[in-house]
């Protein structure tokens, strides 16, 4: 009787170790380190951050902070203007670098440099070039015109455009490389056939290149948007958010509040960006995890 009972019991719910095969147990063991990292440094911080941002008062305070409104607008300019310019240039240059020429191959080796070297020394280099007194740009302007050049980083519009320029300088090589891979995948026969039919440069682009690359281009643009939202260096190292906190973007604004010990505002400013980020993330995940 007792034996039957324990037998029934075993069938109803076998111990976990019996249900898993040895490789599966190893699978769990080998996956555990990443899961621990994920729980400790993604789940807990994000959860804790959201908890810190739970008070509606933070959002009211944000709404009344003119720096936040300015940072939100700057972020939009960065995304809409900056990224579209960057991706359009990348698309154009991907065609240039796809040309079979020895000197273009060599140029492409140099062209990668901005992406390969860390941002801080190069952005500081740009910052010094535009120093109103000692920078090379104003020195040259003085040499040729005899007049003092503008104080470049003192005008928020100019400073923001320059931050966008720095961002483009840094990430253009990467996107050009990706789009070039896409271009090289297009069958050469199509171009040869078009050539025979006497198609012009713009017709070849419109009817062959663009249709083949459209999806890749859109994916790259969206991915670039997500990463640009997290680009702290371009703005912080060039302008520090200045002059008068007018060139902040959301990435630097969160850190600014953090430095001022206003943690709930820092988190709230990030939470405000989530309605824009999450759809992008969802779309990217769907595309990449096919």
């Amino acid at each position, binding site marked *: 009787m007792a034996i039957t009972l324990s037998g029934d019991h075993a069938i109803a719910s076998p111990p976990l170790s019996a249900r898993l095969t040895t490789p599966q147990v190893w699978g769990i063991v080998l996956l555990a380190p990443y899961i621990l*990292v994920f729980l400790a*440094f993604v789940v807990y911080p994000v959860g804790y951050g959201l908890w810190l941002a739970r008070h509606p008062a933070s959002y009211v305070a944000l709404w009344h902070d003119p720096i936040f409104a300015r940072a939100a607008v700057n972020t939009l300019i960065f995304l809409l203007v900056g990224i579209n310019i960057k991706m359009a240039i990348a698309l154009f240059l991907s065609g240039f670098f796809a040309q079979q020429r020895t000197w273009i191959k060599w140029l492409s080796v140099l062209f990668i440099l901005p992406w*390969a070297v860390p941002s801080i020394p190069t952005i*500081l280099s*740009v910052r*010094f070039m535009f120093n109103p007194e000692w920078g090379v740009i104003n020195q*040259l302007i003085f040499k040729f015109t005899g007049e003092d050049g503008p104080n470049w980083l003192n005008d928020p519009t100019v400073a923001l455009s320059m931050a966008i320029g720095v961002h483009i300088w840094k990430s253009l090589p990467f996107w050009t490389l990706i789009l070039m891979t896409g271009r090289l995948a297009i069958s050469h026969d199509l171009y040869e056939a078009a050539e025979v039919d006497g198609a012009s440069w713009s017709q070849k682009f419109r009817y062959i290149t663009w249709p083949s690359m459209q999806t890749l281009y859109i994916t790259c643009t969206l991915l670039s948007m997500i*990463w640009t939202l997290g680009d702290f260096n371009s703005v912080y190292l060039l302008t520090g958010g200045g002059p008068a906190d007018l060139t902040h973007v959301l990435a630097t604004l969160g850190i600014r509040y953090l430095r001022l010990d206003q943690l709930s505002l820092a*988190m709230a400013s990030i939470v405000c960006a989530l309605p824009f980020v999450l759809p992008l993330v969802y779309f990217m995940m769907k595309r990449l995890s096919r």
Partner: protein
Amino acid sequence: MKLPTLREIGTEAKLLLIGIPVFIWTMVPIYHMFLFAISPKEDAFAGKLWPTHPTLNNFSIVFHQQHYFLRDFWIQFLNSVVIALSAGALTLMIATAAAFSISRLRVPGGRWVMNLALFTYFIPAAFLAVPMYRTMGNYGLLNNHWSLILAMVTIASPYAIWVLKQASDKLPVELDEAATMDGATTLQLFRLVYVPLMMPSLVAIGTYAILLAWNEYLYAFLLLSKDTEITLPVALGNFLAADDSPWELLMTTGFIYALPPAAIYYVFKRYMVGGLTAGAVKS
């Protein structure tokens, strides 16, 4: 010898018309940094395009730590090396184990973990920095190198797992079956079959994680603050705080700091381009 036709010359001229601005645009900030590094202070600040007396004196000052800002140059350099190598090694271990588990052992829930990892990959780095900073404080890790190492592992792992999983999926199942038939245990399969076959991808991912950690500024600047604990980029950023920053030394230090990643990139280029552009690497 065949003379180029007029049409060919025209095409070449058009290409040059693109190539020359691209060259200038790419090189100016880098050349400017190099120019400062080899210029005495007077030349650097006079807006010259080539110094009258090129010198390696700035390098000597940096290497001998002969300036207030550079007192801890070597220890900061070492901090950068230790953190980059640790983050690289740890990312490789964690991501390789995870990719093997998900792709080869088909662990239950593996797909889920993969999606969560991808999700992390898309969180903008500056957004995660705010809560991560507080969390590191709660864990008591602030000003400890482990905080930066673990932060870099957290950021590098998702992409690493994703790339390694894509590569693992391409290995034929028959390999695992044959090894198991021969009596290999799961760990032997991992060590003797999987890791050797994955070597090119592992090199690419290791390089990626090392470069990511070496180049990182934001997290380093938030998580570390003591002069003898900070990494080189944070030390460079601290130059900015002063009104009379020695810019020629800042640029020299920056140039030294930028050399290793550029060199590593060119040495491992064939692995990087093959392994990384398959997906899309975090810039």
